């Protein structure tokens, strides 16, 4: 998503700051020779500027986040590590548009998150996929019905969504088990269903909260292979919270969070490894 903004040179210093705040990534800057400067601004999948989050319980406030500024590039495979209570989940919830920040600016795929609850729900449905440690499949529904769920919310006709769900299930190798209920599937299979569900809407960002937490090492490797493949071939941005070094080692960048602040960023790979 590329936005174009024009400002006059005289106003540049004043406006640049606000434009940069609003868009977070300046893709290119051109001068048109008449005193105007043209900037192409790219909406990053995830952008956070001095974001804070304070939880209130009764009369006591717990700051979970104290001024986090973070940019996650398109197609980046990012892992977030840190001790319990460090603010990892808060980061995911805010990036996943499940929660609002207390202050600061948050953008998800270029969209400013100051919308109504229903619009946020639409953003989650259209741009974000979720993968959880405990899979969170809906029990009375079969695997394929679970994968269809995000498409039902947006009125995709029955045969179309069944098609798409079936394709994704085959992609994760579960075509044979499409009509099994979650209780009839192994943990690894359930997580693959959840991955198919997260990807069925072709989201810009997939948010994964300890996706391998309930999986053995073989299943963990299989899941990671699949995630890196999706990331490489489709350019899907992944933000993965994990405790498992095996997971973080395979990402482009590892962000360490401690006490609600980014303690360390470590780049492991370049992002240009995927087909644009």
């Amino acid at each position, binding site marked *: 998503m590329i936005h174009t903004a024009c400002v006059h040179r005289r106003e540049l210093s004043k406006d640049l700051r606000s434009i940069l705040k609003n868009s977070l990534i300046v893709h290119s800057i051109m001068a048109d020779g008449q005193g105007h400067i043209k900037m192409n601004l790219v909406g990053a999948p995830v952008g956070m500027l001095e974001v804070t989050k304070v939880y209130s319980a009764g009369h006591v406030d717990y700051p979970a986040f104290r001024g986090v500024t973070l940019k996650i590039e398109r197609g980046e495979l990012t892992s977030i590590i840190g001790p319990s209570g460090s603010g990892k989940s808060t980061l995911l919830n805010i990036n996943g548009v499940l929660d609002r920040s207390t202050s600061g600016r948050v953008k998800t795929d270029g969209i400013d998150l100051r919308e109504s609850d*229903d619009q946020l729900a639409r953003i989650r449905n259209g741009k974000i996929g*979720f993968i959880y440690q405990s899979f969170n499949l809906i029990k009375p529904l079969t695997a394929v019905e679970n994968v269809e769920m995000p498409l*039902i*919310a947006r009125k995709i006709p029955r045969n179309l969504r069944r098609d798409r769900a079936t394709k994704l299930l085959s992609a994760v190798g579960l075509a044979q088990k499409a009509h099994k209920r979650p209780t009839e599937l192994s943990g690894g299979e359930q997580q693959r269903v959840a991955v198919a569900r997260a990807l069925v809407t072709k989201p810009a960002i997939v948010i994964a909260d300890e996706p391998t937490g309930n999986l053995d090492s073989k299943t963990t490797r299989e899941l990671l292979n699949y995630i890196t493949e999706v990331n490489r071939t489709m350019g899907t941005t992944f933000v993965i919270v994990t405790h498992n070094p095996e997971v973080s080692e395979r990402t482009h960048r590892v962000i360490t969070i401690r006490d609600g602040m980014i303690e360390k960023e470590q780049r492991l790979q370049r992002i240009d490894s995927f087909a644009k």
Partner: protein
Amino acid sequence: MFVSDVFELAIKALLDRKMRSALTIVGIMIGAAIIVALIASSNGLSAGISASMGKIGANTLVVNSAMNFVTGGSQSQYKLSQDDVRILGAISGVTKVIPYYNKMVTITVGGTAIQGEIEGIDLTQLPELYKGIGLSDGAYPSQYDPTAAAIGSDIASPTGSTVQIGVNQMVSVTLSGGTGNLAFLVKGILVPYGRVLFSNIDDTIFIGMQAAQLLLKTPYYSGFYVLTATADDVASVQAAIESQYGSNVRVMNAGSIVSSVESVSSQMTVFLGAIGGVSLFVAAVGITNTMFVSVVERTREIGVLKALGYQSGQILSVFLSEAVVTGAIGGVLGTILGYFLSFLIGGIMPMGGGPMSSGASTEPVFTADLILFALLFPIAVAVLAGLYPARRASRMNAIVALKYE
């Protein structure tokens, strides 16, 4: 979301908790069944009574000696005699006064006992009094013969018995209270006719007026049928009789009986409907309770739906449609159950003994209104009951819901 998807999800959720859903549906079903059964049989009762009133002309008044409705006996000491025929006949607007004598009896036909009555009346007046009455076999007996009778069709061939009584056969009769036995030679058999006022013609033995007086050893009458020139005269004639006799007699006309019966039966309908309403209310509390439990149990699922991008309104409609489906199934099953139940209730309708009791066993009546109400009202109740829990589900905080264990 498509409406079909909303309902599909709701039905899957209900099927996932079969036992609990079934119990909730049973609650609704009982409420709806009670409403249907009670209102249908109450409708049936008033329809039956109205129909029996309709057979007697709108220009007909019944005068009797203030009959006690419970015992069927006479309340006042006043005796109706030939003098009263003259007094009544002199009232302006009256065209004919037909005295009658009747007595509740037990009629035994080939081992089957029938609760019926003997009516002594000028038999030549029957066709004028009861429109369309006639004989299917034989002839009317002599007015003076205390051993000969014309009998109703149910006496000739009692229901539930293979016995057939033909012309020139005997029927035996026990007077109520065991005060004596009588026997009659059947001279004629009446066509099936049904109820008129509080009597069933088909369970009646007709004998001549003089024969009845001979037989029962009394010069007095049970009452009179008073015919007026037109139906418009009925009110003024009734007023004249009431001012003449005061509380010594009771005067009824078909129209006033119908309206009083209808008012009683409509009160009864309201009362019985209220009982059904209370049971539906209890069922509604059941729905609310079940749904609350369900919302709590499915907290995590609600969180997942929110994460997947379901809007509050969509979650509300999924949960609310569970209530709609519960109410709809309960309503349909309740209507069916109520249909069968109404035939049971029809037999035990609380209308007391005495002459009214013979008017009690009537077919229940199902109107389109009643059925529509029985199908839709449970849905409305279910929606109201489900609204609060569904709202609670839709307003849940996604993050809190997702963490719920």
